[in-house]
């Protein structure tokens, strides 16, 4: 049985805005499923439905085999949720907040164990409002871990954190997954999705525009060779059928399904023609190139800029 099973989910707000437009995905036990997308893509709207905080407009959502709203009691003791907003009172100390949560659970792990798991033992008596952003996120995670969840839902768990804090949280999540916990993760950090996701879906304007394992998503996009244009003409005879050469500003860009072969040809062409290739850069296909390709293919004039912004 899947930890999460979402089929044809739509969510429309009272204003008429369609946040989610018919998406389907599954999360297996012991798997990290990444929902990737720009701000406003529908990630949090989807997460709210899976977490049982909002009802779907249409479609079905099953969490650990149950309806997350109608069968709330059967689900909540097996799930842990980290929301974007955190949601712990700033005036309570770390220990008080964890104890408060533990008191609402039927079989919590000891508060000290959860605090130790996120390395906040020396901050137990500190008010939450005095914690750093990274410490707060680790505390959010500690609370989500209290019930030894079978499914962890993480909405942008590392947004606003420095690189070290982000790595610490990734390590924690990986350890949980190794123990069999399923994770539904939303993020707009490509690096995070690459680091953690066993499978991912890219959401754009409420729809899934690409999905699969990281390799599957990336394999459908091409590697890129780029250099500064010094001769005002594209290279001749280096491309296979179906490959493209474009000019972007003062750069020549070749997109290819075979990076090594095409790069060799470009270098030979430059050697033979005596052409300099300043700022030469060869980039294998990656989630970033997939993302940017999706940006170029979208019909929304504002989306490409948003998508490019989050890949930087």
């Amino acid at each position, binding site marked *: 049985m899947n930890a999460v099973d979402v089929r044809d989910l739509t969510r429309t707000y009272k204003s008429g805005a369609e946040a989610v437009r018919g998406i389907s995905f599954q999360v297996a036990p012991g798997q990290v499923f990444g929902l990737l997308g720009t701000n406003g893509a529908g990630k949090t709207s989807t997460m709210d439905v899976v977490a049982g*905080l909002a009802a779907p407009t249409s479609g079905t959502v099953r969490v650990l085999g149950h309806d997350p709203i109608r069968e709330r009691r059967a689900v909540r003791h097996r799930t842990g949720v980290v929301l974007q907003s955190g949601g712990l009172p700033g005036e309570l100390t770390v220990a008080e907040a964890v104890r408060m949560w533990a008191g609402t659970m039927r079989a919590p792990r000891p508060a000290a164990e959860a605090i130790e798991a996120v390395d906040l033992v020396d901050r137990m008596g500190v008010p939450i409002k005095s914690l750093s952003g990274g410490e707060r996120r680790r505390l959010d995670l500690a609370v989500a871990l209290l019930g030894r969840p079978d499914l962890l839902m993480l909405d942008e768990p590392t947004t606003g954190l420095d690189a070290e804090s982000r790595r610490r949280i990734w390590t924690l999540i990986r350890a949980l997954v190794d123990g069999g916990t399923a994770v539904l993760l939303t993020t707009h950090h490509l690096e995070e999705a690459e680091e953690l996701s066993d499978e991912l879906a890219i959401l754009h304007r409420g729809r899934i525009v690409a999905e699969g394992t990281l390799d599957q998503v990336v394999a459908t996009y091409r590697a890129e060779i780029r250099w500064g244009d010094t001769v005002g003409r594209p290279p001749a005879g280096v491309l296979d059928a179906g490959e493209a050469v474009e000019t972007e500003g003062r750069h020549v860009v070749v997109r290819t399904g075979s990076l090594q072969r095409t790069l060799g040809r470009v270098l030979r062409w430059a050697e033979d023609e005596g052409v300099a290739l300043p700022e030469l850069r060869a980039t294998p296909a990656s989630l970033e190139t997939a993302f940017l390709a999706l940006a170029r293919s979208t019909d929304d004039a504002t989306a490409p800029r948003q998508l490019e912004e989050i890949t930087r």
Partner: protein
Amino acid sequence: MTAVLHRTYSLGRAEVLLLRRNKTLLFTAVLVPLGLVAALASAQDGRTDDNAAAGMVSMFTGMVLLFVVYYTVLSASVARREEGVLQRLRTGEAADAEILSALALPGTVVAIAQVVLFGVIGAVVLGLPAPGNPVVVLVALLLGAVMLSVVALLTAVISKTVESVQITSLPVLALCFLGGGLVVPMDSMPENLSRVAQFTPLAPVLELARTGWLGTAELAGTAGQIGILLGWIVLGSLLVRSSFRWSPRA
């Protein structure tokens, strides 16, 4: 049932801690009613006749319920919503009713303690008699606390920030003060107005408190007031269920 109480107690205990750390709210909840006792004592001319005693019981009970229960529940619910606490709690095992009940717990406990204290101080300093039927007084306090908690949650629906509750609470305070006879005594109102005022939220609570404290009314004889209060509680709860905003984004 034990699990429900355990979850509500755990959340309520955290609310007590938060109340203790909120100096402004703590001042309003603890010192304002005590200040009122001092004011009543200084205004008293040495004798406490039935009318004066009825006025003191009404004034104190009304002020305690409004400033301790209503105000703390309203402030706490808006503050917790702004911090995202309510939304986060809904992802856990506690039911919605348990989360909201916990918000009312500290105010209710403090209000009952204040009234007990008022009874003692009133007897010693103001010459107030001991309650004739403490059960009726307790019922008045408990039902009044539940009713005003429900009204506070409804007020929270239209309050965007903690600061804005100073404004959004005014209509409720005005309705309770005027309708409850705290500004103009009920028996001084025109008959038609007095009849309508009996149905405002605080009026049946104060009537119960007065008759329980100063009279010998049995619980069975107070069915009218209890019925009005239960009507407010049921109607308000249905409205809270359908309209309460759990998230600042909602």
